[in-house]
């Protein structure tokens, strides 16, 4: 049924906008990892989505290890402990894994033709997926609902904005603000921007480009780790193939915002979230994915630098 026929079409519309905003923030978190890596090494890190998937698998493992297994545990000691451990372990794990992959796979290919690291990234993505398959099997696995009661915080407006939604906002927005400040004000952040502009010149100025690239992969991985915790707690279902789908959304978000551009990735994520929620509601859920990729194509064709991207002339 289309929400146009709901008793209160305006409230229904507002509801889908809220859903879109919240899931958009999640895509933005993943998109940041793509955009930072692309900004510096011009590599579409196909494996990033699958790294995020492995983070989700790890979070699930933490829940099992701590004993926070079901909704009944929500709010109790084990659940709080599990969430705390997840928020600590998942980013570290994803950062370390991303760093290791960069070291082992992408670093030897820095000077190779551009196709080589791209194809290798597809290979890494396959291997990650296979690890996920071995880890938790081929079926959907439910992720314990560890967040206390889904209380509606804006009761009476005809819309729903639950504690779960609030959690996404509370985790993602500070992370993004922190990242922006980091890139703008710290010396490593400055080195990153310099390397993104011109690696050779940055190296001549005494910047250790290899270290900057490694740091970028680590930060991107950590963001994927944070996203995996939020995703698991929010959607309560994980699957070894989820990385591909969500990675593609996030990548589309990064391109939409202007790849290499941090605020752009956030904006792109939110726009993708809105398109997915509203398109799913008003056009049909089965078409929302096709709609997203259609938009990706249209943007690449007419504004390849994205919404916030600077116009760059192609080097010959």
């Amino acid at each position, binding site marked *: 049924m289309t929400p146009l026929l709901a008793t209160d079409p305006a409230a229904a519309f507002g509801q889908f906008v809220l859903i879109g905003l919240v899931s958009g923030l999640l895509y933005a978190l993943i998109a940041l990892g793509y955009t930072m890596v692309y900004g510096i090494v011009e590599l579409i890190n196909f494996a990033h989505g699958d790294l995020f998937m492995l983070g989700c698998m790890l979070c699930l493992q933490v829940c099992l290890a701590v004993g926070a297994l079901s909704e009944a545990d929500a709010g109790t000691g084990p659940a709080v402990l599990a969430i705390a451990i997840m928020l600590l372990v998942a980013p570290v794990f994803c950062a370390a894994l991303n760093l290791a992959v960069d070291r082992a796979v992408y670093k030897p290919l820095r000077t190779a033709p551009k196709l080589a690291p791209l194809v290798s990234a597809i290979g890494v*993505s396959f291997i990650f997926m296979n690890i996920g398959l071995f880890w938790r099997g081929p079926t959907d696995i439910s992720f314990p609902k560890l967040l206390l009661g889904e209380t509606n915080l804006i009761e009476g407006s005809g819309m729903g904005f639950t504690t779960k939604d609030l959690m996404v906002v509370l985790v993602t927005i500070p992370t993004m603000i922190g990242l922006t400040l980091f890139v703008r004000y710290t010396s490593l952040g400055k080195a990153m921007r310099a390397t993104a502009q011109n690696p050779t010149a940055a190296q001549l100025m005494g910047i250790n480009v290899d270290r900057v690239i490694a740091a970028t992969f680590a930060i991107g991985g950590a963001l994927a780790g944070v996203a995996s915790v939020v995703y698991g707690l929010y959607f309560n279902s994980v699957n070894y193939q989820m990385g591909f789908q969500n990675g593609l959304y996030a990548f589309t978000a990064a391109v939409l915002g202007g790849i290499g551009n941090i605020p752009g990735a956030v904006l792109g994520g939110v726009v993708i979230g809105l398109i997915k929620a509203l398109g799913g509601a008003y056009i049909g859920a*089965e078409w929302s994915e096709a709609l997203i990729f259609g938009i990706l194509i249209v943007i*690449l064709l007419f504004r390849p630098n994205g919404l916030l991207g600077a116009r760059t002339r192609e080097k010959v």
Partner: protein
Amino acid sequence: MIPRLPHWQSVVYALFVILFVALPFVQDKRVSLYVQQLTPLFIFALLAIGLNVVVGYTGLLHLGIAAFFGIGAYTAGILSVQAFPFQQSLPVVLVAAVLASAGLGVATTAPTLRLRGDYLALVTMGFGLIITFVIRNLESITDGTRGLNPVTPTLLPGLADPDLRAARLAPGWGRYWYDYPYFYFFCLGLLVVTNLFLRNLEQSRLGRAWVALREDELAAACMGLNPAKLKLSAIALGAGIAGLAGALFAIAQQTTGGPDSYDFNRSMIALCCVILGGLGNRPGVILGVFILIGYDMVLTPELDNWIQKQQINPGGKQYLKVSGWRLFIFGAALIVMMRFRPEGLLPGARMKHELHPDEDPQENLAASGNA
């Protein structure tokens, strides 16, 4: 100049073709069971050499070749199933599949001509994904996830299919033209013909222009080549061959299958075959198909059967099944090839020289001299 096929390679080629022609005549039921599994390998070899025209010759990284494979399959399905009023014969179906895929290839590539490198890769990937969703969602035409069946066009227009039981020369031979081994011969024949066609095309003006475009678009344009026309012709040919492969795939299975047969994975596996075998080098690409798809479709089920018989894996654990390692093997193959042998297992002389320019030039010269 692209060197001609070395003499010994032509001989090996011919020997393989003779072997494949002879295999169905072996008077052994077990052998015929194995030989039947070669038909899909021929079809995927066609798909891969179609992709090779786009990625290998022209250097456009296309991540959505399965879309054209799907268009070919569904064109064949729509033109031959009972649900639609067409019921065309085999030649019509094949020509329509090729034209539909080539036309769609040109139509979708024309707006993307100014994109390069990874952005082009993304657009093609997005296109491939959209086609999968279209196949899944347009249920009134494609029958959704069930697929169209039976895809059994008549052999010739206006004639009933001949009953070929009388022509059986070995066990396992079927009754109709789309059964083993008649369809096996048909696919093998198309593969050989396409190969010969591409071999001549490589040496032609068009083939050399594609390679020039791959090497340096700007320089090629300065020499008076038209990059737009060249890219469109490459995609038209590549997509057309992929569409032909798709139509054969649907006929071989007698159903188009669901949209999952034409998804991103299919595109990636075709790309793996091309890269593993040797970008731009047809014999290499076909070798890549036989190694990767052969592993995936023939060897894996055999080994899994064996494991099941030995009762090594009573719990059905993924990592104790050979099929569980599928993605790992493909991924590792891509990574290792890119790292240590980016020119592929059986590279063309030119690619080899480009990727290892520091090797002894005398030796390279000798290699192209031999060729």
